Structures are given as C-alpha cells and as structure tokens.
C-alpha cells in the first residue's frame, strides 16, 4: 500500500478545515506530553518508535481505516520507518514530512483585512508553536512585525505581492522564539525598529521606537502608531495600524495575558502590566481589533484560522482583564506560572546579538510549546 509524505501545510489545511486526521506520534512519551500537533479534528495515539521495532501488528487494530493516518516523529526518520511497516501490513498511511521540526517552522499566511487604498494586512500563523507575526503591504512597500527566524517566507511573500520590505518591527525582546527581525532588515535593507528599553544590551544597530511614533508604509496613510505598553518586558510596545488594528505583542492575548517574569523581574513589572492593561488599553477604542503575538490554545483561532478579536470583547471575556483586586492580580501573574519556555535565556541572548547559534542549535532552542501567557 502507498506511503504519502504529508507536508506541514497540508496538515494545517486539514486542521483549519476541521477534517479528521489520526495522528500516530512515535516520539517518546515525554516529548509527546510536552508538545504535539494540536487541533479539534485530530485524534491521537502515542507509541514510541522503539516499541515498534519488532513490528506494528499489535497496534494495527488501533489505527482507523475510515480516515487518514499520519505518522509523526521529531525529524521524519522514525516516522518513515513506522509508515513503511504499516504499509507492508496493507494499509495506506502518511508521514509528516520533516517531522515536528518542520511543524515548528511552518508559517501559514492568512489575510486579516483589506486596508484602505488597496493595502492588505496579513497574519502569519506559526501553528506548531503559537507565534503570530504580521505583514502590512501597501503600494509596493511592506512592513513586518514580530518576524520569526524563517525570514525567507516573508521575503518570498513580499515579492509575490510586488512589495519591498521597508520596515521591520519587534514589539519587544522575545524570550520564546528567535526573532528574524535583524536578519530580515539586513537582507532587505529595511529599517529595524526596537523598543530602546528592551534593547539596552543589544549588539547591533537599530532604530528606537518611541511612544507616539508614527511610521508610514507605502505612499498612503497606512500608519503604524507605537504605543508604549510595558509589562511583559519593560520596553513592550503595541502598534495601532490605521486606528483600527491593535498589535498587542505579548501583553494581551485572546484568552490570556502576558507573563511578566521572563526577564526575572516579575515583581517589578506587575505594576506596569496592570497599568498597561487596565489603564492604557482601557482608554483605547473598544472597536480596535486585537492582533496578539501568540496564541496558546487552538480555541483562540477563529473559524478562518486567524487570531483576532475586538478589544471590547476581550474586556468582557478575557479573565486577565477582569481582576478588580490588585493583590489578586499580582498573585495570578507571579505565582503558579507555567514552566518557562525552553532555553529562554539563550533565546534572549540570541535576540540581543550576544550569541550566534547555528540553525540546528536555534531549532533545538525553540523546541516545544509556547509559554508566554498566564491564564
């Protein structure tokens, strides 16, 4: 029977279309528990490949015949081996091309909105890791916000849109993934903007983002308005695009809020976080569409796969925006926090330009789920 190589893009399509898919994850149990492909239409079986070296007969009756079965491992090798064994037993089966490594790196570009004068706003969903980045395209120019290290994807996308990348922004110094901002700026000649309070230790040149700074993209009035919003980091900055879209970075998510502890300063930054969420954001229009830098759970995705919600809706529904008592708020964001992201210190140092790990090391550093939020 046939073996089919399924790409991360094809798996993403199935998840977004709510098509059933049976995942036979052959990584070790710890790796599976820590991080796996998520989706409402998925069913799972986790059996490490090393338990299947003598054959797959014993698990055949656990594999459905009425839906697609995909074997998944870390880097593809073991899933191909197991898929071949299943195929030899007379079953059709797929394996995930590139394994969880490819899954972690895949970006699905989704259009969030048409902007005036033919401009467009795209959200790049890094579905395997929960990172969200953005591209504004207007009249032959493009701006990219919170880029991942897969810089070629953005460059190719901009080319397809016939746009030159002129501005690259990071809302803050990221601790959970390696920023592609600097590399993108170097490759395209764009200006790289960073909040100066987060960039105190960086080893490269950048343009400092200041409160109320307006950067224009294209020759029309598509304006990116920087809004100083400390809390997740001391320099965290939100952007308001055209007075309609609020790019909230790691300050506010759909179903959670940012955690203030990833630079070791939770106690110091709690006040800033509360001030940003409960005062600065409160003054903004309820009609703004919040576009965060992360999602944590698949429930945060809209029907079309985008992650976006009105600020007013978040003020009524997001638990983190509805804690009246300051002491209780402090407790929530400083105690019982989820584990810190894998290698977050090294990731911060990489984003500061202090260390330069090679691609394989960067992959290892980013392995695992996103953990930037508190719920």
């Amino acid at each position, binding site marked *: 029977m046939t073996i089919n190589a399924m790409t991360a893009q094809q798996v993403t399509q199935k998840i977004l279309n709510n098509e059933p898919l049976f995942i036979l994850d052959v990584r*070790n149990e*710890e790796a599976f528990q820590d991080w796996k492909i998520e989706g409402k239409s998925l069913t799972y079986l986790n059996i490490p490949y*090393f338990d299947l070296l003598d054959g797959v007969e014993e698990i055949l009756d656990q594999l459905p015949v009425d839906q697609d079965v995909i074997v998944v*491992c870390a880097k593809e*090798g073991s899933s191909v*081996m197991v898929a071949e064994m299943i195929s030899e037993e007379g079953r059709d089966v797929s394996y995930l091309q590139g394994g969880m490594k490819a899954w972690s790196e895949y970006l699905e570009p989704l259009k969030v909105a048409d902007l005036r004068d033919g401009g467009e706003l795209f959200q790049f969903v890094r579905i395997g890791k929960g990172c969200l980045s953005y591209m504004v395209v207007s009249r032959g120019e493009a701006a990219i916000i919170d880029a991942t290290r897969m810089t070629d994807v953005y460059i190719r996308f901009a080319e397809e849109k016939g746009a030159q990348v002129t501005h690259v922004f990071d809302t803050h110094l990221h601790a959970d993934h390696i920023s592609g901002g600097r590399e993108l700026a170097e490759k395209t000649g764009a200006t790289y903007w960073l909040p100066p309070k987060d960039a105190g230790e960086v080893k490269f040149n950048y343009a400092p983002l200041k409160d109320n700074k307006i950067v224009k993209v294209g020759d029309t009035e598509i304006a990116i308005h920087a809004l100083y919003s400390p809390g997740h980091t001391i320099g965290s900055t939100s952007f308001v695009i055209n007075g309609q879209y609020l790019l909230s970075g790691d300050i506010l998510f759909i179903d959670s809020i940012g955690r203030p502890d990833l630079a070791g300063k939770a106690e110091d930054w709690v006040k800033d976080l509360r001030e940003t969420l409960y005062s600065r954001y409160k003054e903004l229009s309820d009609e703004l569409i919040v576009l965060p830098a992360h999602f944590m759970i698949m429930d945060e995705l809209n029907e079309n796969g985008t992650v976006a919600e009105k600020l007013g809706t978040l003020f009524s529904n997001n638990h983190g925006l509805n804690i009246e008592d300051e002491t209780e708020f402090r407790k929530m964001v400083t105690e019982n926090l989820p584990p810190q992201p894998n290698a977050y210190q090294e990731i911060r140092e990489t984003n500061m330009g202090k260390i330069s790990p090679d691609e394989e090391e960067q992959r290892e550093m980013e392995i695992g789920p996103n953990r930037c939020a508190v719920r």
Partner: protein
Amino acid sequence: MDIKTNEVLDAKGLACPMPIVKTKKTIQNLDAGQVLKVEATDKGSTADMKAWADKAGHQYLGTTEENDVLSHYIRKSSDEESQEKHHPHVVENDALQLFDEDTLILDVREAAEYAFGHIPGAQSIPFGELDERMDEIDDMKNIYVVCRTGNRSDMAAQKLAAKGYNHVYNVVPGMSGWTGETTKSN
C-alpha cells in the same frame, strides 16, 4: 571521562531511529549485566535511549558529552532480583551511615555504573575483576560490599570470605535503594 565498557557502538552521524535500532541489535549479543557504550551525535538520542532502556528492562546508566559526541552507557538486563543470597552476614543500607576509618565500602558494580553515581569514598572493583584485584582490598577493615540489588555483592562477599577475609558484610538492597549522598567520577 574514560569508562571501561564491554562493547562500544559507533552510531555517530546516524539520525533517529538508527541509534536505537543499532543499540537494540548490539545489546542482543552481550551477556546479561554487561555494559554497552553508544556514541551518537543525534541530540534526541539521550531521551530516547533512556525511555527505550527503561521499557526494555535494561539499565540506563547515564550520558556524557564531549566535542558534540554523546556517549550513552547502558547495562544489559539481568535477572538479579530473583536470585537467592548465600553470604551469611547481611546488613541493610542504613549500616553504611556509621562510616568510620575501619570501614571499607567495596562497590562491585560495573565501572560505568560506579562512574554515574556511587557512595563517596567507596572503592570500585567490578565483580568480574575481583579475583585478580583482590589484593587491593585492605583486609584489616570491615568490608561492606555493595552492588545495585545485593546479588553481585552477595557473590563477591562469598569470594572474599572464601579467601580468608573475616569481616565481610553484604549490603542490601544496595544502590537501588540508596537515598544518601552519591558522587560521580570525573
């Protein structure tokens, strides 16, 4: 750290699943209780080696890393737990708390087992080398023989007693139940 093993498997440059596939094959040719060193460069091999060994009943001893090469140490399963003890003088692990200058802790596990965790001050002579190295043992001391579960130490204690060592005690269960301090070899 150079640790003596019975066999070395070179799995360098091989991607998953090959390090485990080869380890499984190689360990089949070893005798129960022997130690295999697997050299690999696949970073994911550490977690998999440990999980596989636990399931297969082998003893995962530990991993060292040098110049991007990982060395995994695995001891082939043996049915030690079921064996009957014969040496008459048996003490429990607690007896080792009363360590003084007249006490000698003799660790008869394999060199790799000792290397990844032993009682500070314990002397290492693997059971298989005991006959030829017995003269390294100070017969004026009270000798407390330890292994992982009390079986190899039982056999070692019998050997020592047969050679005329007077104050020899088999410590049970040994390192598998040891909750006190341990140290690694450098």
